[in-house]
């Protein structure tokens, strides 16, 4: 028993380091407020210690040998998210009104629920094979969510991205992310052996085998549909990136990726003149300074915040990050860049890089092709999402609204990200008794 309890010391140590970082951040905020401790502070530290450390200990006792780095990284990122929500709340309330009051505690609740989801995925006995068996159920569920949102969704900022569930508004693209990765992993693994088999000829043009062509066309249709109907550029880009990555893993042919990118580019450029919201993003990306108070406004504000942050940042609580609209959700990376500087933002990127390395290692060591694709797909989903939004906020690529995994404020995103980490942990459980598989 004692030997087992000590089997996850690395994880425990990393969690303690993450916890110390959070306490340092909160301590700074408290010191700036003249020693005023808020409920959220206690809640953040309490949630962190009680949930993640407990999770780690229970996993140690079960001794299935899950990866020991994933959980601390997810916990650290979620912790940074909670601290930022706590730091931004008063500024948001002062600037934009009372509708933002309470986001710090709400985010703690979301992380708490996220950790519970993770615990359910990790501890409740279920078979990985179920994911594979019911693949069409998952796909149908995902498409139904999207369809339902398109019909009866709630509009915000001119985009219909939310499904009202009364107590909270679900962003269906978030669960769709997992469902799609599961479906693609199952589908592509089934047709893995078709490499080099019969191709189709269209005149002189050699086409990939139909099993690849069909999902390719489907995905293309889905992304374009997302752009046209839901105006959700970020999700469209993300889904397409996930799909291309997984397709590449199965086929090992860069040609399909290039064809897919060309198709995406063709779709985007065909839509560009038709849809104002795509144009706005591209124009703001090309030169935000040409219209600094209009289309380029958010970008200019973000660049100014980053510039003000400099190398070491203004200091937590000492910047003015809420002048960038949506500083707590999509633009949270700009807030980090301003208050924690290049050092903090780079540290955050390192966390994602480490998460990617561990995720892909889990994929390499997975026991079968399906789990390999699943692990690689989930990892790619998290990292691609982080890249899309950090690249967008820093004006590297056109900005498309999407949350920064684990860090941004928001319920759907937090729950789904923890579920994804839960599945990754399950796949990495090397010491799992074979009978449970």
């Amino acid at each position, binding site marked *: 028993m004692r030997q087992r309890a000590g089997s996850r010391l690395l994880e425990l140590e990393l969690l303690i380091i993450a916890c110390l970082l959070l306490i340092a951040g909160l301590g700074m905020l408290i010191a700036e407020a003249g020693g005023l401790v808020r409920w959220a502070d206690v809640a953040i530290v309490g949630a962190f210690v009680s949930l993640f450390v407990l999770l780690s200990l229970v996993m140690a006792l079960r001794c299935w040998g899950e990866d020991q780095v994933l959980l601390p990284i997810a916990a650290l990122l979620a912790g940074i998210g909670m601290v930022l929500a706590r730091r931004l709340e008063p500024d948001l309330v002062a*600037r*934009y*009104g*009372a*509708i933002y009051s309470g986001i710090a505690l709400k985010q703690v609740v979301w992380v708490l629920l996220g950790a519970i989801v993770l615990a359910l995925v990790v501890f409740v006995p279920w078979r990985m094979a179920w994911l594979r068996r019911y693949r069409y159920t998952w796909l149908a569920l995902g498409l139904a969510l999207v369809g339902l949102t398109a019909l009866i969704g709630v509009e*915000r*900022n*001119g985009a219909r991205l939310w499904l009202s569930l009364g107590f909270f508004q679900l962003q269906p693209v978030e669960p769709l992310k997992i469902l799609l990765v599961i479906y693609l992993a199952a589908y592509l693994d089934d047709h893995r052996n078709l490499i080099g088999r019969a191709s189709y000829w269209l005149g002189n043009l050699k086409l990939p085998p139909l099993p690849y062509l069909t999902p390719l066309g489907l995905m293309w249709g889905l992304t374009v549909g997302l752009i046209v109907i839901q105006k959700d550029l970020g999700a469209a880009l993300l889904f397409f990136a996930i799909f291309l*990555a997984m397709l*590449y*893993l199965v086929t*090992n042919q860069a040609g399909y990726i290039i064809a897919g990118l060309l198709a995406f580019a063709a779709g985007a450029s065909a839509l560009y003149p038709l849809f104002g919201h795509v144009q706005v993003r591209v124009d703001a990306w*090309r*030169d935000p*300074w040409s219209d*600094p*108070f*209009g*289309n380029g*406004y958010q970008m*200019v*504000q973000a*660049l*100014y915040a*980053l*510039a*003000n*942050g*400099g*190398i070491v940042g203004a200091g937590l609580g000492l910047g*003015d990050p809420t*002048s960038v*609209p949506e500083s707590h959700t999509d633009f949270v990376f700009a807030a980090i*860049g301003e208050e924690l*500087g*290049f050092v903090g*933002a*780079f540290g955050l*990127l390192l966390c*994602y*890089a480490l998460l*990617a*390395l561990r995720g*892909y290692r889990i*994929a*390499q060591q997975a026991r079968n092709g399906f789990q*390999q694709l699943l692990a*690689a797909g989930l990892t*790619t989903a998290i*990292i*691609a999402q*982080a*890249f899309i939004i*950090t*690249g967008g906020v*820093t*004006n*590297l690529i056109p900005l498309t609204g999407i949350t920064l995994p684990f860090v941004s404020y928001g319920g759907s995103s937090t729950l789904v990200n923890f579920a994804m980490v839960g599945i990754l942990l399950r796949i990495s459980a090397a010491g799992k008794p074979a009978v449970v598989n």
Partner: protein
Amino acid sequence: MVTRRRIAFNSVLAVTGLAVLAIGVTLPGAMQWRLHLLTGLWLLSLLPRALITARVVDAARGIARLGLVVLLALGAVTLQLVREQALQANATRARVTTLRQPAGDQPPDTATLVRPADRTALGSGRVWPVAAIAAVRGAIRDRNGVVLAETVNGRRVYPFPDLGHITGFSSRLYGNSGIESSQDEDLSGARTLSPIALLEGRLLGTPFAAQPADVQLTIDVQLQQVAQAALGDRPGAVVLLDPRTGAILALATYPRFDPNLLVLPERASEADVAQAQAAWQELAARADGPLLNRATQGLYPPGSVIKTLTAAAALDSGLMNGPEAQVTCPERLPTEAGAPPVVNAVENLSRRTGDPSDLRRVYAWSCNTAFAQIGLALGPERFAAYAARFGLGMRDGTGAPALRDIPAEAGTIAGDMVFLQRPAALADTAFGQGQALVTPLDMAQMVAVAANNGAMMRPYLVQEVRVGETVRFAAQPEALGQVITSQAAAQLRAIMAASVESGYASPAALPGIQVGGKTGTAEAPGGPPHAWFVAIAPVEQPQFAIAVIVERGGEGSRSALPVARQVLAAALGVQ
């Protein structure tokens, strides 16, 4: 062998890639940089790709390559951060300050409502996203309607540059300060919009109309100019109050600053920006603190004017039953073992006060030993309680109620209660030495209590806020509390008047009008003392309370008193 040569070749390419990245990251053009980034990363990726092909087993190769792409993507974001946060940061900041809000004839577009330059608000730190349309900002006027600040052709203009410490400035570069900051929501019209409407407008881009309001101050520009002229170019301050309401009629301070130098015209050239920045840096660098409003923010030892407070406490508590109550004025007054005895400022003062003397005469001739005895008789608790009623707390606790409109420091009677417990410290504090630090506004309020039958009014600067003919805010005089009884206040007025009739304050007398006053000479380390004078007039029905300080002015009766006399004469219309 082939692979080794290929790896060597790819290493060269990788170095080239690094060079391309290093050159690209310094380029000012964003698109050029992105092309360099793409090229550089591609060249850089060839080496690890070759290594993966050579070293990694077939099955894991796809995942390894995917990992490489992901790492390169995160590396690209890192390089972008380096560019934006280090190399281009100064360029970005400089660019933001030259941005001009497109405002004017067309209705304000919600997307254009925040001026990024406002974020450098060194003035106040207050930034309201929609409070930014310079072309439609309301005017600031004095009590008689004279314009103190208005917007002409998109540029904020301050016709009286000497009033910068009152009006403050509204600058795209340095944010808002003074009334421009405290009344910003009215002046910009943002107050008419609900937070929800603001958010909605911002998010949905629907235009809305803001209604800027005009702000009328209690300041009388004529009296203000008399006060400033009387003070001249000596560092110091003048506060003139209406004791019945708390309205501030004049608030002079020197050195001053000209807010016109800090604002930009609507179409700002780089030269304009450089000029404003130079002006700001000069102001910020000056050792004499021109941005400090000495009248409300300057903290000085009070000197003998604090004897008014001690006298008020003695009269109100019943320790002394009137101006005729007996008290001695000895040459020296030992207080406690080891402490030097209290002495008077001049020798043989009892020849003037008489011995035994009375409260009226020891006040008029500013007898330290007499007030030390009164202070000791009051005791530390009672003395501190009266000081607190006058708004002077301890530095470790709460102070006076804040001035509503512009920032004001809270004066304090001592560092903490422990200090006052020592007899020597209590005696010193009661006659004007010790640890007390007060603002001129505190001292004006102190004598205003005597003038207003013992009630202290909250001081204020904003008389009225109106949009067109609609009055949105009208100041209501607000009593902060009855500090002393009206009987004690009447007795205090009597001894203040006696001090002008025969005493150190006698040069303050005005023809046909009874003035009550008290001089003060506050010891300050490292130079001549600060000169104080506080006064009320007319004594029978006071309309004005005044406090004057001249830094390093020497004796109060020589330098501060004439300033107060000139201002009171102008206010009352006599010579």
